């Protein structure tokens, strides 16, 4: 089930950069405190470094996604589309999110039974960046709000096209809350305060990237789970056999 899409007011780059800086504090603090704890506990360098490597790598991936989203939002440009396997994109994104999910104790599920072998028109880099940005918000929030945290990356057919998104048991985000979150991004400390402690920049960025693909971020539901998703047009040119 899909809800009407959102639109946000224009936002100054400085406000957005401020929000990105706020989001970047968290992985850096995690690194600093883990190093300190490692010293206190006399942990081996290998143990500590392996943890830190994961945090740093995930933060860098996220910053790349944020850069893309902010640039697209600033320049209002469109991304080139190509036929892609939505199953493959979701699988690759799940692989990228896996280390962060493990660190937070969140289980990742992939469900593309409703859209297996479907090709969609999208930009591969953009779509992965959008999903990664959304995924990071979902992982941090679900870990906080759920006793058995699980998020699902899913794709399924709808009358309008192939719907795809990220879902969880605790992501009961209304269309109004999503619209407000995007409007308040960069302005409010916690634009999605009932779901996340962070700046919701991942949602704002995902929305920008999707708009550059002529798609829009919407609230949606998948098998009794709430979430955020998008509808992508199927490719008519090729069909996987």
């Amino acid at each position, binding site marked *: 089930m899909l809800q009407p899409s959102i639109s946000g007011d224009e936002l100054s780059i400085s406000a957005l950069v401020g929000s990105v800086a*706020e989001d970047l*504090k*968290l992985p*850096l*603090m*995690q690194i*600093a*405190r*883990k190093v*300190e*704890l490692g010293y*206190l*506990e006399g942990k081996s360098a290998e143990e500590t470094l392996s943890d830190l490597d994961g*945090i740093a790598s995930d933060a860098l991936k996220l910053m790349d996604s944020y850069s893309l989203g902010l640039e697209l939002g600033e320049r209002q440009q469109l991304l080139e589309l190509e036929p892609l396997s939505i199953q493959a994109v979701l699988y690759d994104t799940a692989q990228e999110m896996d280390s962060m999910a493990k*660190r*937070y*104790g969140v289980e990742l599920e992939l469900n593309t039974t409703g859209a297996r072998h479907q090709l969609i028109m999208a930009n591969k880099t953009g779509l992965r960046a959008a999903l990664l940005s959304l995924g990071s918000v979902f992982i*941090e*929030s679900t*870990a*906080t*709000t759920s006793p058995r945290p699980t998020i699902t990356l899913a794709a399924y057919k709808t009358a309008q096209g192939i719907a795809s998104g990220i879902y969880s048991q605790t992501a009961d985000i209304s269309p109004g809350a999503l619209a407000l979150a995007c409007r308040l991004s960069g302005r409010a*400390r*916690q634009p999605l*305060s*009932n*779901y*996340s*402690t962070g700046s919701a920049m991942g949602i704002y960025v995902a929305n920008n990237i999707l708009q550059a693909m002529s798609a829009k971020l919407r609230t949606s539901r998948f098998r009794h789970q709430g979430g955020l998703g998008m509808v992508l047009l199927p490719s008519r040119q090729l069909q996987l056999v």
Partner: protein
Amino acid sequence: MKRILLVEPDKILAQVYKASLKRAGYEVTQVSGAQEAIISANDFHPDIVVLELKLVGHNGVEFLYEFRSYPDWQEIPVIINSLIHPREFASSAILWREIKVAGYLYKPQSSLKQLSSAIRFILDKEAQSSVPASLKRIENFYTARDFGF
């Protein structure tokens, strides 16, 4: 053994803070949100609360108002350990007078050692007349006096 109720929404930081405070000799219960914190305070009877203000749902200030509304909890010291910079509360009597925060640490710039020292300082009433050397050098631990309250 003194008991700490740690209200920290980020799972990774929560694990680190909890491990560090247990090493420092405290019994620690960690929760992620305001509602859980009220329930835990009732079950766990903490000697001190360490609180992040940016929570999901009800924020830390709302939690503190509710916390202080219970007669049994009015004198339990609360240290804020938050992502929000204390300058945002510099001229506000709310934190220091109404909900009686004992101290404030700015999380991005405060180490595990500083948190332990701050807790020790607040809990040890006899030591309160002299601030530990480690705290004197650190600009990130604030008390009501720093803001004229």
